[in-house]
């Protein structure tokens, strides 16, 4: 069978893909999508530890549900902020939004 370390490695790779997306891309929407990738990596780690190590409880799955609920709240508020920015600046690229620098 697949050992626990494979699942944790997959979760690590997924997390760093999301972190790279936040650091490299300049479109705010794709940066938010990368944050979703990182949340899913944490979900995978929680679920894998629940299945392999603490299989007498369902705590990891419960926490994954809470992470999904928090992701929904984060997406709703974040996209509302992006709409407000787009209405004011007519762009979603972060290099055009550096108002704090000047």
């Amino acid at each position, binding site marked *: 069978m697949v050992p626990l370390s494979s699942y944790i490695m997959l979760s*690590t790779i*997924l997390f760093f893909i999301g972190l790279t997306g936040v650091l490299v891309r300049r479109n705010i929407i794709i940066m938010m999508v990368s944050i979703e990738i990182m949340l899913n990596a944490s979900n995978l780690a929680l679920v894998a530890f629940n299945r392999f190590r603490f299989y007498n409880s369902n705590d990891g799955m419960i926490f994954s549900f809470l992470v999904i609920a928090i992701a929904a709240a984060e997406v709703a508020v974040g996209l509302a902020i992006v709409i407000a920015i787009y209405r004011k600046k007519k762009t979603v690229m972060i290099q055009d939004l550096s108002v704090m620098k000047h």
Partner: protein
Amino acid sequence: MGVYIFYLFGTGLIATSVAALLMKNPVHSVLSIVTSFFFLAGIYAGLSMQFLAVIQILVYAGAIMVLFIFIIMLFDLQKSEYSKDRFLWRDIIPLILMIITASGFIAAIGRSEAIKTYVVNAKLPTNFGSVNAVSFEFFGTANSVGRYSFLFEMISVLLLSAIVGAVVLAKRKL
């Protein structure tokens, strides 16, 4: 058999996630992420978390990501706008740093004996990962309160405040 399914879904998960970061158009990027969430749901099902796999597809891929696509459709960005988001040479620095850090983590996980010794236990509880188990934790039984009932109520308060905040932020004029 389960090993091949894990590696198939894991490869698909990583490939679609990387493809999402390589796309210029945000719509293609979000659709690629939706595909990767389907692969992740397959991995959850392989860990006998059937209910979480269904929720992953219904809520995450079906509701949250469709909200992304809906917002992108509202923007009506031109092609010239997408070309601003190109790979610059200074972006190679975070890329290399991330690859080095990730390989360090993976090497540490691969060397750890404490993690490697755990394999799938054959005798799981009968209601592991089912709707029954989740409802028992969240809502309790007729005579008792579940362990996470208060957390469930707090999540509903959080979602309500997120709805109010989204409406206030997206409103043109208060």
